[in-house]
């Protein structure tokens, strides 16, 4: 599956805006993403497995917070964040 990476996380993907990852759930996909791009997952998921505030994950057009949400081949995953803070 293609995963779209926002600019603040591209230091983990050699500046690539789109990378590939596998998994049957959003959470598994993020683990696979971290295997190939170490460190990325902890910047967006805390040590208790919760998506950090302001981090958003879309499966196709649907925003999901539950990392157990299933995904399948052909889905497009987009990671975004609200650039608030000033």
């Amino acid at each position, binding site marked *: 599956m293609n995963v779209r990476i926002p600019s*603040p*996380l591209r230091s983990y993907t050699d500046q690539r805006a789109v990378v590939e990852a596998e998994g049957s759930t959003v959470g598994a996909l993020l683990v696979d993403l971290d295997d190939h791009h*170490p*460190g990325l997952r*902890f*910047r*967006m*998921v*805390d*040590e*208790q*497995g*919760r998506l*950090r*505030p*302001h*981090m958003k994950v879309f499966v196709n057009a649907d925003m999901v917070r539950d990392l157990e949400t299933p995904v399948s081949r052909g889905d497009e995953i987009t990671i975004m*964040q*609200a*650039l*608030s*803070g000033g």
Partner: protein
Amino acid sequence: MSSGPVLLIGTRKGAWLLTGDAQRGAWTETEPMFLGHIVHHAVLDPRDQRTMLLATRTGHLGPTVFRSVDLGQSWTEAARPPAFAAGDPLERSLRAVFWLSPGHADEPGVWYAGGSPQGLFRTEDGGDTWVPVAGWNDHARWADWAEWPEEGTPDGSMLHSVCIDPRDSGHLYLGLSGGGVFESVDGGADWAPLNAGSLALFFPDPEPEYGHDPHCVRLHPLQPDRLYQQNHCGIYRMDRPDARWIRIGDNMPEEIGDIGFPIELHPRDPDTAWVFPMDGTDVWPRTSPDGRPAVYVTRDAGESWSRQDAGLPERAWLTVKRQAMTLDDRDPVGVYFGTTSGELWASTDEGERWTMIASHLPEIYSVEFADPVDRPS
């Protein structure tokens, strides 16, 4: 090659290095590092004078630690950054790595990190992999001491001021805002509050066992039984084995008061310390009292204080955070402080005369003296 001091500057929008010449009269500023990232603390290891750790996050990305052995030319992220244990019964997650302290001289590679909320973390490999200090984080009284899950301070509660007794690597002190000062004599396996004599005027009982707000705690390396703290409620000193703080801030001029964030100790004279008083009246502006900035120094362990404002603006409303004051080790000692308005001020004569050596930086969170084996190119 210059033998001048290097200052590591952490800001709300990145980090900078400032290198002085041998006379400390000319300073060279690097390009920003981690531009846009919140940098709470950057510290060079005084043991190898080469390893620099930097505690960072952004408004959205989780906290982490980066490591450099070439003064910021290149950085490597910790393979296992500080974090509470997965499955933590209190479901804590670390919001920020707020404080970094190199470990004991006999334990190269050991560092401690203080977090927000008030977790304590330790590395034994120079900052690559970190583990929670279970004796603190899982202490049966932690939730009481840390006022969990309340957030007692505006930017979130934090653990800071990890002080290590140079005679005994297992003898540790730390500060909690809020929570108070705590001591361990067994390497962090168990802890006890150490707050008697200090005030917590924001409670009905102003002298509770814990719950205080020490802003900055320092131990003198040449007289390790001597502690100083700049507290939310005054300036204090303690000489162990006494276990009661003495309010030396009572000796400050009444119109100035003894409220502030940092306190810094002369590296060779345990009786000399510097503070930067701020306005703690009314709604606590935390700016220079009456808009007339000054550093105050004591040379008799707090019995008396002297104003040092030559060169500082006559009127300015400056705020200096708890990690934003530092001293070098030269003779005479250089004193430095950074403001939330992005100015860095220096004195090369122990505070007698001040000069601004950097300006227009983002909000300064931390300033640390470093004496690296190699200087920035």
